[in-house]
């Protein structure tokens, strides 16, 4: 009997949503029927979602991929000799040479789809915990300096320099500080946090541990959205292993330092992705926005200095410590340094995770990677940066996906999600939806957001049904309302809802003319 053949079948939520569990079961059953011994590893996704479930078999010549595989394909695949890497119409070969993947610069997502997310030794074999070892040899101030020198900016959306935030917390002279990881990835079109938590959770755990060492915090919280049950399970498993193996807890790695992590679940509130609402929620209250100052770095969780960082930001830290600040900052352009995990979503043929140095244009992303729309119709618009991000028309697709260039276009990169729409999209309906979403998710603390969003929905409805004379006045009023929300809201929800509304008005004004009869179901 030969040694067991290793198969990789992603356990990533996206792959599962396309039947990966049934594929894994079919592979086990069919292999047994052929008296072939197999070992099935549930890896994360490599992020080529149109090829999921993407199965890989380990052969003497390396990993050979097949995809997209359904459970019904499995008997024929095995008949064709899949377990030995034989040819088949679904055979993709070595997936790392696929141009979609080979052209990427996977730094934060380097291990996605490659390692077993519950196997600490696999993590270590792929470069894991080198960053922590480096950090343990440094003074806290030097860890902070390394992160500052790398140019890393918060990947959650605000793009605040991570090193400056850490320095502020580092400089506070108090007994208790916290690391709070924002895993409330609520923006439509984004899923990179989910992929990391499910596919490489030790990277986040290591990053938070390094943050704790740097600023002098002994406890970290991961505020995870309740819509991510798969990530919750993956994190629980990884945290348990890390604790048992001495990578978390008291005197971790015999360093004399303590750090531990607790996961806390959100409860379905988009606003809790805003950092001060998240802190309120972590404290067990309504997720209402806090007035700043004081900054969370000075008075954050339970009134103590707190580093609040997104999953991607923290999961990037181990690499920076392992390879050095200069290695990381050599990627990127201008003030957008390093790589950005872009998430290509919506009506697109080849959606998924595209991690590259900053500077890729929208056009390259949508056409070179995305292959155009999934429906085959012309692409009309993209929304970048989630529900508070601007819509860009085709004429703006040469804009590079980096912070300053987008800002110059009254747009933003946010958490890096890009949602593609074909020419069937009704942009007045999308503008109305942006306001409606703001009304549904507003925490209610400030008036421009709480009331303005509802008045905005009513205004759009009126614009689309009223006579021409009134429409111009109402369009001007909608613009004024956007002004009020932009300038008068306490946080980004009310303050940035004007971005999708105004960009739709600017670039797709013809959709507000009111002729379309199929609106508003």
């Amino acid at each position, binding site marked *: 009997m030969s040694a067991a053949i290793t198969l990789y079948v992603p356990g990533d939520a996206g792959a599962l949503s396309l039947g990966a569990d049934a594929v894994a079961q079919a592979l086990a059953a069919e292999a047994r029927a052929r008296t072939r011994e197999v070992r099935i590893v549930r890896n994360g996704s490599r992020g080529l979602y149109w090829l999921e479930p993407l199965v890989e078999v380990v052969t003497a010549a390396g990993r050979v991929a097949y995809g997209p595989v359904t459970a019904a394909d499995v008997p024929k695949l095995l008949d064709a000799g899949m377990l030995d890497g034989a040819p088949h119409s679904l055979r993709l070969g070595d997936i790392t040479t696929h141009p979609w993947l080979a052209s990427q610069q996977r730094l934060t997502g380097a291990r996605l789809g490659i390692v077993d997310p519950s196997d600490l030794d696999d993590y270590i074999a792929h470069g894991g915990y080198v960053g922590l070892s480096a950090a343990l040899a440094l003074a806290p101030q030097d860890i902070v300096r390394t992160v500052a020198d790398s140019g890393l900016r918060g990947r959650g959306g605000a793009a605040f320099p991570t090193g400056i935030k850490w320095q502020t917390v580092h400089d506070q002279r108090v007994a208790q500080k916290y690391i709070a990881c924002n895993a409330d990835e609520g923006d439509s079109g984004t899923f990179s946090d989910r992929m990391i938590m499910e596919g490489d959770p030790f990277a986040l755990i290591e990053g938070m541990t390094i943050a704790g060492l740097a600023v002098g915090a002994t406890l970290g919280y991961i505020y995870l959205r309740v819509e991510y049950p798969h990530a919750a399970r993956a994190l629980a498993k990884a945290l348990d292993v890390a604790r048992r193996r001495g990578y978390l807890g008291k005197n971790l790695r015999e360093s004399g330092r303590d750090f531990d992590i607790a996961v806390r679940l959100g409860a*379905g509130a988009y606003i809790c992705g805003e950092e001060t609402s998240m802190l309120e929620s972590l*404290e*067990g209250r309504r997720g209402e926005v806090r007035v700043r100052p004081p900054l969370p770095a000075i008075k954050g969780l*339970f009134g103590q200095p707190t580093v609040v960082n997104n999953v991607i930001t923290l999961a990037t830290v181990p690499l920076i410590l392992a390879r050095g600040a200069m290695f990381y900052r050599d990627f990127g352009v201008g003030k957008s340094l390093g790589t950005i995990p872009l*998430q290509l979503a919506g009506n697109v043929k080849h959606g998924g995770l595209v991690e590259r140095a900053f500077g890729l244009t929208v056009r390259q992303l949508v056409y070179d990677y995305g292959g155009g729309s999934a429906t085959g119709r012309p692409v009309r618009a993209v929304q970048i940066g989630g529900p508070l991000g601007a819509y860009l028309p085709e004429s703006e697709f040469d804009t590079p996906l980096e912070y300053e260039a987008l800002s110059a276009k009254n747009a933003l990169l946010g958490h890096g999600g890009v949602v593609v729409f074909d020419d069937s999209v009704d942009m007045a309906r999308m503008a109305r939806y942006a306001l409606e979403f703001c009304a549904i998710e507003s925490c209610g603390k400030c008036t421009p957001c709480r009331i303005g969003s509802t008045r905005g929905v009513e205004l759009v409805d009126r614009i689309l049904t009223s006579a021409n004379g009134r429409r111009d006045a109402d369009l001007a009023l909608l613009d004024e309302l956007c002004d009020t929300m932009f300038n008068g809201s306490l946080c980004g929800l009310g303050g940035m809802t004007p971005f999708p509304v105004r960009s739709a008005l600017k670039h797709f004004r013809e959709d507000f003319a009111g002729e379309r009869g199929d609106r508003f179901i």
Partner: protein
Amino acid sequence: MNHADVQRCVSAAIKKFGAEPGPLLEILHAVQDELKHVPPEAVPLIAAALNLSRAEVHGVVSFYHHFRGTVPGHTVVQLCRAEACQSMDARALAEHVTRRLGVGFGETTADGRVTLDAVYCLGNCACAPAMMVNGELHGRVTPERVDELARDWGVRN
């Protein structure tokens, strides 16, 4: 729901999480995980244990979309209505699902089998439209797929 059951469930949750800092959401999650909702009679019990007012606890329960005050159907269907799913015609899918089930969003079928909820992003945006059924995620959902699954939910044609 038997009052003694509620009392026992709340006491267990408070015993488990009550000593942690800011434990209210954890307690509410524990109660809802077991009872499938947060019964109104649980609110004063939790408030008393945490030295909060009933209004404060009710305020938290009602703030979050996830917490519900009534028992949902046997199957909870969460259909994503956010932008990425809209770009793949989630509106038409929503029409189909509401027609098929005969209920609107936030409602439960008369026979108590299915509750339909709106959700704003399940993180499956490259496989839109997305839907979660009792915690199980589905991608690239079509009306036909919904009809197939609906048989398992006990929905008659």
